[in-house]
């Protein structure tokens, strides 16, 4: 993208010289947006921006209220309204028209209508109720694209009180032959679980079905619900540990189709999600932890390649190993991994290493000791973020011997720090230490 991005705003004038042609509606409306953006870009003051946008909003307002405006034109108007709002200028007069666009537009127009609604409104907005009928209609459409977009919008926002009206339709979609519909139905149910958990109590067995779905996408969608439920009640899902372990094994072993790869790594974000789930299940539970040791070892082994995403997986893996019931050889490998991160010249990895050390230092204070030279170096690192993270780590390993030095370093940092939140946090820590070691 790098050199092509240099096709910057200076190229705009030549590209937009076509805007005077009356014939081609598409071209002229695109250039209206283009004109608007170019106009904004060329301005140098906030005052001028305000004037331009107010003029634009007035123009949009006039056109949306006109009976002569086609849905095609309405679509372009909505995109311009979205742009205005993204600059911080309210265009609430257009909200109702976004809903109308979703109701009356042809397929692409409808999608933009739904998009506009999801950007303009929020959960508690009264206009959202007007969308329910349109969504209900589209959910029953024979056109699968319309079903998809209805499910997408339901997953983004839906009035809590109307869930009973739509729930049966969504549940039905769980058995649809197309994986995309099943997947989106699961995500819609996840949304319902987030906003009204008692409404979906009765369909927990359907979540299990989704977990075992032959399509990896549907299975992945169900993990969102499971992660949430397991966070709330790990005991209730220990029996699923074997399933999660099996899935992770298959993913790590490269059993998924190629298009799930990212830079040759199989479904990395899915691996991370599974590792988080396993952490929760194995915590303080020896027998459950024992089920996962093998796959964790395998994950550590496979994530050997030098790419950021494998490091991200390794980090999650290491966290998992330190969270669950300890196993010495896994801990050894994990410790080595943390060491590699902390010693890495790549600054993002160093940061992760420090973060990992902070996390594990309670269980393994020796590890911090092992890397103390590097930690001391990080204290004087030019990057304030690294410094800050190091102080966080040091706070955890404070003892009667080093407390004075550590507090001194914290005070030093406070003198150069400009961020309020960090100041408050550090001052709190210093106070805590002062109390602990008077």
């Amino acid at each position: 993208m790098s050199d092509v991005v240099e096709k910057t705003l200076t190229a705009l004038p030549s590209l937009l010289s076509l805007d005077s042609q009356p014939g081609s509606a598409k071209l002229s409306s695109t250039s209206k947006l283009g004109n608007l953006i170019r106009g904004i870009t060329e301005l140098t003051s906030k005052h001028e921006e305000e004037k331009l946008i107010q003029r634009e909003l007035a123009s949009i307002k006039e056109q949306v209220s006109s009976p002569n405006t086609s849905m095609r034109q309405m679509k372009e108007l909505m995109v311009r309204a979205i742009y205005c709002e993204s600059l911080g200028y309210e265009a609430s007069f257009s909200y109702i028209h976004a809903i109308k666009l979703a109701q009356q537009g042809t397929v692409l127009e409808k999608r933009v209508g739904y998009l506009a609604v999801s950007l303009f409104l929020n959960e508690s907005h009264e206009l959202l109720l007007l969308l329910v009928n349109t969504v209900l209609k589209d959910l029953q459409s024979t056109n699968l694209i319309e079903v998809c977009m209805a499910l997408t919008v339901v997953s983004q926002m839906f009035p809590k009180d109307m869930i009973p009206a739509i729930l049966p339709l969504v549940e039905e979609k769980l058995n649809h032959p197309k994986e995309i519909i099943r997947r989106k139905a699961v995500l819609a149910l996840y949304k319902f679980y987030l906003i009204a958990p008692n409404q979906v109590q009765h369909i927990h067995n359907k979540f299990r079905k989704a977990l075992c779905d032959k399509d990896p996408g549907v299975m992945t969608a169900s993990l969102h619900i499971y992660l949430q439920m397991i966070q709330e009640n790990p005991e209730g899902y220990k029996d699923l540990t074997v399933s999660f372990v099996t899935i992770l094994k298959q993913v790590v072993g490269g059993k998924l189709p190629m298009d799930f790869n990212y830079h040759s790594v199989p479904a990395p974000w899915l691996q991370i999600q599974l590792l988080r789930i396993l952490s929760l299940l194995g915590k303080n539970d020896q027998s459950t932890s024992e089920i996962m040791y093998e796959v964790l070892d395998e994950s550590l082994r496979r994530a050997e390649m030098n790419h950021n995403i494998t490091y991200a997986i390794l980090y999650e893996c290491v966290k998992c190993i330190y969270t669950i019931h300890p196993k010495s050889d896994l801990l050894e490998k994990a410790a080595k991994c943390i060491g590699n991160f902390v010693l890495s010249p790549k600054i993002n990895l160093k940061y992760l290493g420090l973060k990992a050390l902070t996390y594990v230092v309670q269980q393994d204070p020796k590890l911090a000791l092992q890397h103390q030279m590097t930690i001391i170096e990080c204290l004087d690192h030019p990057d304030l973020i690294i410094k800050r993270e190091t102080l966080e780590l040091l706070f955890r390993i404070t003892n009667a011997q080093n407390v004075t030095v550590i507090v001194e370093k914290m005070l030093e940092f406070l003198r150069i720090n400009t961020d309020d939140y960090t100041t408050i946090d550090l001052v709190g820590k210093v106070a805590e230490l002062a109390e602990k070691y008077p």
Partner: protein
Amino acid sequence: MIKFMLMVNRQGQTRLSRYYQSVELSRRAALEADVVRCCLSRKKDQCSFVEYKDFKLVYRQYAALYIVVGVTDTENELSIYELVHNFVEVLDKYFSRVSELDIMFNLDRVHIILDEMIQNGHIVETNKSRILAPLTALDKMADG
């Protein structure tokens, strides 16, 4: 979880903004300006993760465009860093080597793509073909 995603250029002009946790319209411009200022002041050899207020920013620069994602503390920063890259690769695939202009003039399409990847602040799809499938189908229907 992901709180928001922004695409901002070096002049501080927002090209795209998506909030997964409600932020009042009037407060957004100030937040975005502050976030961008924060990221613009970082050097090349510094960490891509910034502690900001009580959450974190993960940012990535592509020529003149900064993509900034606000995430809660519990998120794996490096995985989000790569998610941003995945997003750019998807845009590259759809627009055949995407540029800032493509993003500006196809605001709706970029949002539609993002909708397929992130919902409710969680990563829901990372498979490029699956992310693009609905939009490609829409394009076909709109043309035909």
